[in-house]
């Protein structure tokens, strides 16, 4: 047992650290650090730089631009990227639909979509959740009826993140209503410009527009846009959701937040002294740091174990990554809000696009919105209650 990285691993880490901090524009990384929303252009620019370097789709098959990296290298890559405040490559492209097409898609689909998906020439969004199908995803009702060489799609998706930017959407649709719910679902790729699609924004409690409703009204989709086999979509969805096991803890992001909290807490004053000197504040932060360190170690254990596990089997520790990682992210946004104190109050998103001076310090304006926004991380991707159900069943055998 040796918990130190090898010389090769350290060299790789240093290379990654240098690359992320020099190749990605500072202006973009600063936005990530401050929790300011990224524009589509920011995301695409950053992803293209990574892709050009061959460091975008590292988890894809090597034939399609993936890397034959060890789990430790993948961990270091993610950790350094997150610590450098580099935007994570568009998840819908790189973590979700890309691997599904690479695994289950036809040769034509791979040629047509994979390079464009890697380079963010196509911006994808994800059409899974529906108004009546949140945690109970398999109950989804958006219909796709086969008519000759087309599917006719009718229904509604919700919580569709960044649909306003998306060129394409990958959807779970119901193609058979006569069978068990899970067995009548298919995985369809749909061009967002197709007539009959309407996108309507949902403004979230932080005042931001990340999510949308997407309506399908007799939308015609060519059958060649079906991924894999009809009615096997549920299997592909499970593959997609199980694909990302370790990055989801976002340990690197949280480490960067801890450091930022310490920096800002030395600028803010409480009782005439820098807040960072306040014992109670320090202990509150230290308590989260301990959980974060433990999670980092847990993640390293999962990473080290991945080499040994046969595909598809999970280390029990992996199941806690999302559960604990989400809570830590939320606690840190709360602490960040504590740091700015009363200057969490002004709602400054109305100032966007004009030159009004900020009220209070620049860094305060996103503190409360980020706190509100991060309530989502224990809800999306299977709420923490669903995660507990899964762990109880799959790991504890209850």
């Amino acid at each position, binding site marked *: *047992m*040796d*918990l*130190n*990285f*090898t010389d090769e*691993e350290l060299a790789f880490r240093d290379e990654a650290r240098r690359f992320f901090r020099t190749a990605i524009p500072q202006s973009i990384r600063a936005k990530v650090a401050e929790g300011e929303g990224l524009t589509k252009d920011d995301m695409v620019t950053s992803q293209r730089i990574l892709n050009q370097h061959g460091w975008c789709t590292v988890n894809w098959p090597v034939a399609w631009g993936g890397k034959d990296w060890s789990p*430790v290298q993948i961990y270091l890559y993610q950790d350094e990227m997150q610590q450098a405040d580099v935007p994570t490559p568009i998840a819908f492209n790189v973590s979700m639909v890309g691997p599904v097409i690479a695994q289950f898609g036809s040769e034509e689909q791979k040629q047509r979509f994979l390079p464009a998906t890697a380079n963010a020439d196509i911006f994808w969004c994800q059409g899974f959740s529906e108004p009546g199908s949140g945690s109970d995803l398999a109950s989804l009702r958006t219909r796709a009826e086969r008519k000759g060489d087309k599917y006719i799609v009718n229904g509604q998706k919700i919580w569709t993140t960044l649909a306003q930017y998306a060129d394409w959407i990958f959807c779970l649709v119901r193609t058979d209503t006569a069978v068990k719910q899970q067995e009548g679902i298919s995985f369809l790729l749909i061009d967002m410009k197709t007539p009959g699609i309407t996108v309507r924004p949902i403004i979230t409690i932080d005042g931001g527009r990340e999510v949308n409703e997407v309506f399908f009204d007799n939308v015609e989709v060519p059958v060649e846009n079906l991924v894999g086999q009809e009615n096997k979509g549920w299997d592909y969805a499970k593959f997609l959701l199980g694909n990302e096991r370790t990055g989801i803890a976002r340990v690197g992001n949280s*480490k960067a937040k*801890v*450091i930022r909290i*310490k920096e800002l807490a030395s600028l803010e004053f409480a009782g005439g002294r820098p807040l960072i000197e306040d*014992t109670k504040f*320090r*202990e509150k*932060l*230290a*308590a989260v*740091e*301990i*959980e*974060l*360190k*433990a*999670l*980092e*170690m*847990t993640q*390293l*254990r999962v990473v*080290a*174990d991945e080499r040994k596990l046969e595909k598809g089997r999970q280390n*029990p*520790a992996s199941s*806690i990554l999302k*559960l*604990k990682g989400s809570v830590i992210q939320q606690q840190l946004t709360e602490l960040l809000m504590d740091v700015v104190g009363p200057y969490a109050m002004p709602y400054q998103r109305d100032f966007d696009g004009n030159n009004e001076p900020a009220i209070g310090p620049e860094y305060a304006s996103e503190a409360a919105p980020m706190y509100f926004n991060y309530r989502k991380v224990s809800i999306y991707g299977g709420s923490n*209650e669903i*995660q*507990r*159900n899964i*762990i*109880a069943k799959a*790991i*504890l*055998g*209850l």
Partner: protein
Amino acid sequence: MDFDLSDDQRLLKESVDRLIADQYKFEQRKKYLTEPKGWSDAVYAQLAELGLLGLTFEETLGGFGGGPVETMIVMEAFGRGLVLEPFFPTVILGGGLLRRAGSPGLLGGLAPAITAGKLKLAFAHIERHSRYDLGDVATTARKEGGAWLLNGAKSLVLHGDTADKIFVTARTSGAQRDRDGVGLFLIDANAPGVSRRGYFNQDRLRAAEITLSNVRVSGDGVLGESMLPTIEHVIDEAIAALCAEAVGAMQVMHDTTLDYMKTRKQFGRTIGSFQVLQHRSVDMLVALEQARSMAMFAAVMAAEENPIERKRAIAAAKAQIGRSGHLIGEEAVQIHGGIGMTNEYSVGHSFKRMTMIGQMYGDADAHLAVLASLGGLFGKAA
């Protein structure tokens, strides 16, 4: 980076696991508790036979040559069995002080006897007022001729009642809470002027109150006149060892509770089918895995020579262990219901040991305060 055990470590783990499985079933442990010392001479002899009492001594001294990882392996197994014998004070505390502070002559002279199970050690450092501060020492050491005379009262000395030799801290100079002037001495437990009162702790491990009245010590028995940094390093290693023991105890509580949930029926179904209990069981698992991760972190950092970096890590680990331990112990008893309250059932005993580990060398809040004062874990130390 590699979490795998080496071949030697795997063999060590197998033999310790087997010992615990064979010799430390709940009913066997109950029997050991009724023996005169409150633990089993036969088991202690077996620890010697397996070479465990020489775990941390160099091979040239007849030891196993083990480091923090070997200690972790052994202590985790001992935590599963709730081992009663004086391994921890003899090997971890005593052995640690000998290795780090003893003269080559002292170390070479005592290591074989310790390894053979013929010499048991204890470390007397707590005083009524000192709480978790190793430097708060009122016991005095006064030089007289070529010897030192020790006077004072030491409290809560683990296995102090059966130890053959006892390490003692005593102030050689300075005020009661000065970091300088904390001397370290090794005395015979039966030396003139030493009186001991033995008793059980809550977890049924033994301890003693010790008074020192003009206890004379000289030569090799004087390890140093100002030894606090060395003592702190040994205690940090001891905390790492306790973290591993705690993980063993937590693992058993989690496993036992899970088994109970799968067999105990109420309202015509197993209680494990109730979602509210499932979710709590998952939270126990999370607490356990977080604790295990930090016990590993502590083991790796225990050898760190930079005291600040080491302290940050050890404080973080002990705080995590304290938090996880309370959650798992309390939930284990709660989910068992009435049976969890009885002395006849195993879970309560793991809970008690876990809880006492929480009180040793600083509870979770004390370590959180230490970590906070050092600037936390990430970024530069304060």
